């Protein structure tokens, strides 16, 4: 008997009687989401900007980054300040990226997480390998909790997707918080609209 059969047989022999699967939707409030989002995001080390459009985002980023630094973005709006991201090429070739600019599909105010599916970054490694990360999110796409986020995601068949909340960090040395563990050292969130 294969291990697969052995394991499944042991589960069948030992499992308890069937228990119901609960389906709980927790009611939430819908006011003050942007304020909550900002408070939580800043609390975990992100910078939050409310902007009218991409022009403003560019202005803010141009103030912090030099044109000589490698900036990448799959967004056409940023083609004048960032190179595109070609899918399918060797992901190692992005090792020297200073700033990546991407768009999130959903924001969650309770934890400031941003849903970034693979299609939004072209290459999965982009939001991790860059030294700094900027994410745009439309104001009306910010929902209260993860439950609402997952109902928006629904049954979309992505290959990879990630919730990102704040810059990469660690507190493994004596619980001292250090931003910039292996991923980006900073996260800028631009709430657009």
């Amino acid at each position, binding site marked *: 008997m294969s291990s697969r059969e*052995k394991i499944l047989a042991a589960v069948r022999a030992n499992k308890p009687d069937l228990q119901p*699967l609960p389906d709980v939707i927790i009611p939430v409030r819908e006011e003050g989401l942007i304020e909550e989002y900002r408070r939580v995001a800043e609390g*975990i080390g992100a910078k939050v900007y409310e902007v009218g459009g991409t022009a403003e985002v560019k202005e803010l980023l141009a103030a912090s980054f030099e044109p000589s630094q490698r900036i990448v973005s799959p967004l056409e709006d940023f083609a004048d300040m960032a190179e595109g991201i070609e899918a399918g090429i060797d992901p190692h070739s992005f090792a020297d990226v200073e700033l990546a600019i991407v768009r999130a599909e959903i924001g969650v105010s309770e934890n400031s997480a941003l849903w970034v599916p693979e299609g939004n970054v072209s290459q999965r*490694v982009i939001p991790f390998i860059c030294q700094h990360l900027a994410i745009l999110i439309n104001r009306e796409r910010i929902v209260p909790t993860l439950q609402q986020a997952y109902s928006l995601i629904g049954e979309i068949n992505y*290959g990879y997707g990630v919730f990102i*909340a704040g810059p*990469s960090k660690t507190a*493994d040395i*004596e619980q001292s918080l250090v931003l910039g563990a*292996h991923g980006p050292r900073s996260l800028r969130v631009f709430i657009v609209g």
Partner: protein
Amino acid sequence: MVKEETQQQHKGLAEHSGLADIFNRDEQRVNWHDETLWFVRSKRDKAAHSLPEWELLRETASQIKHNVLSDLDTYLQQFEEQALINGVTVHWAADAREHNQIVHSILKKHEINRMVKSKSMLTEECHLNEYLKEHGVEVIDTDLGERIVQLAEEPPSHIVLPCIHKKKEEIGELFHTHLGTAAGESDPQVLTEAARQHLRESFLTRRLALTGVNFAVAETGEFVVCTNEGNADMGSHLADVHIASMGIEKIIPRRKDLGIFLRLLARSATGQPITTYSSHFRKPRAGQEMHIILVDNGRTVQLGREDFRNSLKCIRCGACMNTCPVYRRSGGHSYHNAIAGPIGSILAPNLDMKAYADLPFASTLCGSCSNVCPVKIDIHDQLYKWRQVLVKEGHVSPVKAMGMKVMAFTFAMPRFFAFAGKAGRVVMKYLPFVVSNKLNPWYKEREMPKPPKESFREWYKRERR
């Protein structure tokens, strides 16, 4: 010397109390450890109390896990089917040995002998690193805390905070030796930067990455990995081959159930609203090979133990450790098991009753662990129930067993009880050194109480007259 003694845990020679003694030699460190973990526990409280629906979330999570355990074979097959559709190779491992062999066979197939690994308590449980080392494979643990204990040649002492037992000066020394940081450098910011540079080189040069799994979704075949550092993603997105190892109990039914579990996990673990990254892997990226290894290693046996099966609901947040008065003062290594603390103490005897018979006794049964558990495992009840099983099966030391027998005998004989009480009071009054000495384990770290003049029974008899 302390290191050698701590390493005895690998050989299963030491008992919790003896290993706790080693940890307790440095009182200042114990106090620091105690206070730091309590601080993490306080952050958990703050996060939990900020959500009015917290208790509803815990109850729902517990029920979802109950449903999973009651239909686990169906969910596992559904998960496998979906994963295969997604282009992922699925392996089944009955035990630790088979898991390790599968990992090694994938390495051999690709002629790879260097790999990176993000945090996976399952691979600690399986002793994968040791196995691969014996077979000439170099494994670099990429979680900062895990890398630190790896350089120190120690196991992690906490499932979420692997090097919480180490002071920054010791870490500075390790980094000075292995990563070339300046002698005496102990600033966490500087040390973390050194590790970032060192591990970035590893990420960029290793072709195989292994990650753990926090949740695996039956309906979609995807799995979710949670990190703060981004190390699981740096490893897997740069590697040609991604292996994800998971215990079979990591299954949840639906994608939307993540909306319950991810709300609980980080808040319970560190008080964060969510980990920095919650990565959902469903398909390998173009040109990449992805493997999932489903591991039993005793889990189906635990599923059959009615009193203990709830322990399989665990989502490895570590809240029970941070709150435990024994864990905080005895350190993770005193549990001589991959998973320490209260949850480790109810999981370990399932794997080997004899080797871990001491662990269910390493508790005050105060119940704090059960109160903070995000999936409502009745941890302290199970600790108590394990004690019954272990004594019945003859797995406790003869001294402890004899002590219990004497106690049972005394309690069952009212006259002998009265006599023994009186004798005790007389001895403590006139010959205190008989009990106040090193041979009496109750005297350790305690003052013996002043003996009362009379027992309650004597007082009651007198007063009733």
